[in-house]
């Protein structure tokens, strides 16, 4: 088990898809609209070694009530600028597209947090601040102090993609079970 601490450095390059890690330190939430805003107006935090968490939490009275991961694939086309700016880890659920695997190569990793585990995640987080609050609760960039978030390396910095490996196996099983010769599934 590797214990990661933000700001992250080249230690993330040693990770391999399937490794279990914990993540502690400051992280920043961002969903679709926050990514679009950051591309237009700039990144409001220091991106060097940062971890960006795909999450739209429930916040009440300055406190995180629940804060589980959202589907990362929605950010497939919105993530390159973050990695270019020095972000070392994207955290979310469900994996990301092949373009992101290439953007991550040699630079950063994708870490998977168990989807739906919003109470578990919030129990290991403290709310520190917010950017772009006008985007609303789900879409704002929340600044969070994380304490040992339990994560699995989904995509490593060497092109290793656990989600892709599982998808390819599923495709093979599907074709065998239904006796499909040609690839008729997108």
């Amino acid at each position, binding site marked *: 088990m590797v214990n990661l601490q933000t700001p992250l450095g080249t230690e993330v390059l040693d990770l391999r898809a399937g490794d279990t890690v914990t993540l502690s330190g400051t992280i920043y939430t961002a969903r679709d609209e926050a990514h679009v805003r950051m591309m237009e107006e700039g990144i409001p935090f220091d991106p060097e070694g940062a971890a960006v968490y795909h999450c739209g939490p429930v916040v009440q009275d300055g406190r995180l009530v629940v804060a589980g991961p959202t589907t990362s694939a929605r950010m497939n086309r919105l993530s390159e600028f973050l990695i270019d700016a020095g972000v070392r880890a994207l955290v979310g659920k469900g994996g990301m597209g092949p373009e992101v695997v290439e953007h991550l190569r040699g630079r950063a990793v994708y870490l998977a947090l*168990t989807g739906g585990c919003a109470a578990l995640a919030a*129990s290991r987080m403290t709310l520190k601040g917010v950017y772009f609050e006008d985007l609303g609760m789900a879409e704002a960039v929340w600044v969070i102090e994380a304490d040992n978030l339990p994560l699995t390396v989904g995509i490593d910095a060497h092109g290793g993609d656990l989600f892709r490996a599982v998808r390819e196996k599923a495709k093979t099983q599907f074709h065998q079970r239904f006796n499909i010769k040609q690839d008729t599934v997108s």
Partner: protein
Amino acid sequence: MMVHPADPTLSSALADATERALQEAEIRLPPDVLAALRRAAVAERDEIARQELGNILENIALAEERQVPICQDTGVPVVYLTLPPDVPFSPALFEGVREGVQRATVTIPLRPNVVDPLTRENTGDNTGVGMPAVHVTPGERLTVTVLPKGAGSENVSRVGMLLPSQAGEIPRFVAETMLLAGGKPCPPVILGVGIGGTFDMAAALAKEALLLPVDTMDNYEQELCDVVNALEIGPMGLGGDTTALAVKVKRAGCHTASLPVAVNVQCWACRRATVEVEW
């Protein structure tokens, strides 16, 4: 046309019941779903999958302990009412449910998820045009059942208009739905499958199937569940034995020239609760 004035008593009783049902559903999983997750955690052979299932079970316990929602995607409110003969079908029903959702949004709290479909403007209180979705059927007692539906799993749901000769292709359509979905809907999933009816009925049946208990499956449902689990997508798409906890099927008569099939995908957090309305 006679317009029924809103009955404040009925409306307010429904608001209370809706709020209570949402509170129950958002914080505590139904016992049949929890039991299915526990069984899966014992049976699972893949190490990463076991960790994922362990996180899920820890999360469920923490949500109850802290009295917070299980997942931050607290869903959109889908509501089913049963209406006894002595309760009039009136706007008071819909007003009561709407008020219950608005209150629950503040008291639980829920994430405000409902937006205008085009401008994406958030109403802030989980209601909107036609939302909450309210479905009314006759019954012996006045009850409110809520099924808060998250987007990750809803977004990978499908309706297919199969040919009448393709009944044998239904397992393939169901498995293909999960193959295309992968880890996106937060597996282990529960699949509601609607077979027959019309284009829209199949989807409605598929969603209603998610209200059925998951501790039993008939042979057909088991067959569908087995083909999905053979894909080895596993919890969160990270691989493993547990892709679906259960598949539940509802059917309706259909046109001789049609075979509508709908698969409504539900994440492991199959949140539902029923409250009898006291008034």
